[in-house]
């Protein structure tokens, strides 16, 4: 059933086209976008259910057989990521109904948003490494259009940094892909898995692997390549920064996981050792950066970085349990992080400020909003029984099991500092009395208030559900983790059993 795979990418893109051609009728654009999001959610659920029941799904685009054509592959990790993308896309569109579109300056929000969702799903589903690069480029263009819409000076400033760093990243990615193609003669990731084992010059392979670390590292905002993120994420509209915060860096992490489990496993001690150090430094610098800021979205931006460290840590340890932890972490984190940005936006809208110095009294005036902040914030810090607790538990348990005690200590310490940061927001923003100088913002109408809060409520409910019943998500993460540790099923699904056997025999002789 190849249409299921292709339509997860085509439907958002097509709705972007329809949205553009209906410009400037905003109400119609919103309807199209909302309908597409509902359809996309349905497709994503169907995809995950099918993968859960039948195993890895493969579609060869245009009937060109692998490894010559572009292959779309949905394994447990990909389909879970597509589903979470669809959920987040839906939440963003609903939130944007009352937030973005009141502002006459912000035009053309929905078409680039849908293009972004399509590109992200493309990156998750492609089984071809050059095609992955193409989706990165589409993502870059769509996210730039979203970043600069509104046209304030700070936005342009952030967008320039974002674009410059992204261009460096994609250039590195392209060079890496070129070198890899030169060495192996293939771009299909499953085929690459087999061919890299036959490459004689393993040293060169490690060099290429480091190029990929840099390229995906910039995208994922790991230490020391993260500085573009805090510079650009707090500038655009809330709905935009929420979907960026939830999704974009995670596409980098996803690609890292895919490439460093499927292709570059020839010298795990070296490549994954570098990843381990990166993970530790990323966690620490991110959380320290967050501690030093006072603006809500800036604090949250730095927390993205420190959380990315935990995910990379799961990959760097490279044990089955650690990968299960990494997958669990990504899935929980996307929901929580986007939700925190929504809450920050709603707080700004309802209380008139996003700076901790001038903010206050939210708990007294908006008790529901305060409760809704509590769930994702303390989940992020890893408070039991919220979802973040299980994610951290898995990753730390895996690092203890691999006898990497220092990194476990770092992870625990960073968890504490995250808690400090969240408490700081809680005490200064929500608990203390509103400063006398602060102005009351114009009140929202009831339906708008509902629109603003409903995505936050839904995402918080998902976080609570994961926290109280971690079983199903753990099962999913476990299946995904085991698939990642043992790529033979992936390779067999893409190339077919016969080819795998013949090339395997070939490698056996070469060894």
């Amino acid at each position, binding site marked *: 059933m*190849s*249409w299921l795979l*292709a339509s997860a990418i*085509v439907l958002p*893109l*097509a709705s*972007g*086209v329809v949205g*553009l*051609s209906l*410009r*400037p009728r905003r109400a119609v654009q919103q309807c199209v976008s909302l309908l597409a999001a509902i359809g996309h959610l349905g497709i994503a659920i169907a995809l995950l259910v099918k993968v859960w029941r039948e195993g890895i799904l493969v*579609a*060869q*685009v*245009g*009937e060109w057989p692998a490894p010559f054509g572009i292959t779309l592959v949905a394994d447990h990790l990909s389909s879970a990521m597509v589903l979470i993308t669809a959920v987040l896309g839906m939440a963003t569109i609903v939130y944007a109904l009352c937030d973005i579109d009141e502002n006459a*300056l912000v*035009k053309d929000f929905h*078409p680039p948003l849908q293009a972004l969702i399509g590109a992200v799903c493309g990156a998750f589903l492609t089984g071809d490494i050059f095609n992955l690069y193409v989706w990165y480029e589409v993502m870059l*263009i769509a996210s730039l259009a979203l970043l600069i819409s509104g046209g304030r000076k700070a936005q342009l400033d952030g967008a320039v940094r974002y674009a410059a760093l992204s261009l460096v990243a994609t250039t590195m990615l392209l060079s890496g892909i070129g070198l890899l193609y030169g060495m192996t003669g293939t771009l299909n990731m499953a085929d690459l898995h087999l061919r890299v084992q036959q490459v004689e010059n393993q040293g060169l392979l490690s060099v290429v692997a480091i190029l990929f670390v840099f390229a995906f590292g910039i995208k994922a905002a790991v230490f020391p390549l993260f500085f573009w993120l805090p510079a650009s994420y707090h500038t655009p509209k809330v709905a935009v920064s929420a979907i960026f915060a939830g999704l974009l860096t995670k596409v980098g992490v996803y690609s890292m996981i895919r490439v460093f489990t499927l292709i570059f496993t020839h010298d795990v001690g070296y490549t994954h050792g570098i990843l381990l150090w990166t993970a530790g430094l990323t966690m620490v610098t991110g959380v320290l950066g967050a501690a030093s800021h006072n603006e809500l979205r800036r604090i949250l931006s730095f927390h993205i970085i420190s959380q990315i460290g935990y995910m990379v840590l799961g990959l760097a340890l490279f044990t089955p349990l650690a990968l299960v932890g990494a997958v669990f972490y990504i899935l929980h984190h996307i929901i929580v992080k986007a939700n925190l940005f929504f809450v920050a936006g709603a707080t700004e809208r309802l209380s008139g400020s996003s700076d901790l110095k001038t903010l206050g009294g939210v708990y007294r005036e908006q008790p529901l909003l305060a409760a809704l902040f509590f769930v994702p914030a303390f989940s992020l810090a890893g408070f039991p029984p919220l979802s973040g607790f299980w994610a951290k538990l898995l990753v730390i348990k895996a690092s203890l099991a691999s006898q990497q005690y220092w990194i476990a200590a770092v992870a625990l310490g960073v968890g504490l500092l995250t808690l400090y940061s969240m408490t700081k927001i809680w005490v200064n923003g929500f608990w203390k009395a509103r400063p006398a100088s602060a102005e009351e913002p114009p009140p929202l109408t009831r339906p708008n208030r509902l629109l603003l809060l409903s995505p936050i409520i839904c995402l918080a409910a998902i976080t609570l559900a994961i926290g109280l019943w971690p079983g199903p998500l753990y099962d999913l993460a476990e299946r995904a983790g085991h698939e990642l540790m043992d790529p033979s099923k992936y390779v067999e699904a893409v190339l077919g059993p016969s080819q795998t056997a013949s090339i395997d025999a070939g490698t056996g002789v070469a060894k």
Partner: protein
Amino acid sequence: MNTLILRETTRVLFTLILVFSVATLLRGHDAPGGGFVGGLIASTAFSLYIFVADPKDVRRLVRADPLKTAAAGLALAILSGLIGPILGGRPFLSGEWVEIGAVELGTPLLFDFGVYLVVVGAVLTFALEIKEPGAAPAADSEE
């Protein structure tokens, strides 16, 4: 930038580059070329024209709204992928061919043409927005 030499060479080059871009687009099926490169070449022609002429003249010359051109291109590319599944129940983006005399026409050409329009439309949008700062929002509020 608007010198006599640039103006006169653009007059000659503009048509040449456009013809070359279409040639690149068509040759792309079996040889290096195709919609993306062709589209980029065509957009250099328009960019040259934007340099020497008033943006309003360029808009009048192009007639269609560049952003909608890009949207139409993307729609064409997606539709070309859907022809295979609809006609023969084959996977997305499968090639379907018709022979007219000695010429084979197929959906890949349609796809390439769509990509061509996307690239030209997108580059024109950016270039015109840069050349006429502040004019775009005003035009929007009239709509």
